[in-house]
């Protein structure tokens, strides 16, 4: 029993800030030695969404990076929130994962309590209140889309808690490339095929022009009563196939004599 430090009250759950000072000291020490501490896994990312005639199309790439290394070549960035609401997440991978799961659970409990299908605006409000509470320390930039009784809706939510309700949004490091495609070709009330092609091209622009995005393109088409989760919709970056082989064929005669040549390399 640590007699010098005793807990006098039953401790509550939630975030614990006990190790913050220790971590700061460790970080300073490590930096002094010239090393860098391990980076959190981010999702680099290009995510986007568009509202079309009957619903919303959400799109995302599938690369997760850890600093300068690709940590996951095929990660799923379109998260389930409720049967009619899906959310793409950019930023720190763990933050987006946990945030969307918590909001999904809360929305399920809420819809059981109201007895109705949940609304996209409810999910938006829950997300923005939680992200504002943590003042941006939860690094989750989200694109929330869905169809409810009030029609198709699309929101973008920033890590500090601000939200925008727009007909087309992009987020992530490849957002500028994707937004360029949207600004060029978006028009209101598109058909489904045209909307899917637009989103696919926007994500492809992010994949080919941004180092933090790559691999495949996932799409999620949400309409009233139906969700099409297309994973992968398009394998934009195929891994190369080896053209040659260094193996000897079966039956090749073994060489049993050894020749040794001494070479002099002046150093």
């Amino acid at each position, binding site marked *: 029993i640590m007699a010098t*430090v*005793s*807990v006098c*009250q039953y401790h509550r*759950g*939630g975030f614990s800030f006990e190790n913050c000072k220790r971590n*700061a000291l460790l970080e300073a020490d490590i930096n002094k030695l010239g090393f860098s501490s391990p980076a959190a896994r981010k999702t680099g990312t290009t995510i986007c969404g568009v509202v079309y005639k009957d619903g919303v199309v959400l799109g995302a790439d599938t690369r997760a990076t850890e600093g300068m290394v690709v940590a996951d070549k095929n990660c799923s960035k379109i998260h389930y929130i409720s049967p009619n609401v899906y959310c793409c997440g950019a930023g720190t991978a763990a933050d987006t994962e946990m945030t969307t799961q918590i909001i999904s659970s*809360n929305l399920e409990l*809420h819809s059981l309590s109201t007895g109705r299908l949940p609304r996209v605006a409810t999910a938006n409000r829950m997300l923005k209140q*939680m992200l504002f509470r943590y003042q941006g320390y939860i690094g989750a930039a989200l694109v929330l889309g869905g169809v409810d009784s009030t029609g198709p809706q699309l929101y973008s939510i920033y890590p500090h808690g601000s939200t925008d309700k727009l007909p087309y949004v992009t987020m992530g490091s490849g957002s500028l490339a994707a937004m360029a495609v949207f600004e060029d070709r978006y028009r209101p009330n598109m058909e489904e095929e045209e909307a899917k092609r637009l989103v696919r091209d926007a994500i492809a622009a992010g994949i080919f022009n941004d180092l933090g995005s790559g691999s495949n393109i996932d799409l999620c088409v949400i309409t009233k009563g139906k969700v099409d989760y297309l994973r992968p919709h398009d394998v934009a970056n195929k891994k190369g196939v080896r053209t040659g082989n260094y193996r000897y064929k079966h039956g090749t005669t073994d060489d049993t004599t050894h020749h040794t040549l001494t070479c002099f390399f002046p150093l």
Partner: protein
Amino acid sequence: MNTRGLRSQLKDSVPVTGLCPQAGSYGVQDSLRRGFSSVKNELLPSHPLELSEKNFQLNQDKMNFNTLRNIQGLHAPLKLQMEYRAARQIQRLPFLPSSNLALDTLRGSDDSIGFEDILNDPVQSEMMGDPHIMTEYKLGVL
């Protein structure tokens, strides 16, 4: 770590009691029970969110009660606070986990999930508080 921004969270005139873990019953440091102290540890919060998270529930309640008072009059928060006080008293022994079911129902947090249910769940913590010390603290004899 840049601590300049954190200083703005200190109140100059009001003692920040939440951040002085070393103060014992007479206000001086209590090395036996709370370990060695250091000025830096006590004066500044270790993370900008530490203070706001510690007081989050309190501040939410205050805000809600204020709104309720403005809309419905003084009686509404008074009655509710009386019920909260009654519900808060339904506890098990100080070192055992209580479900706080009545309190949760009153607050409306029985149908919502937050980080306090997922991270550091006190029911699953590896360490238990010393029963004697916790009971003495609760009774005020510590």
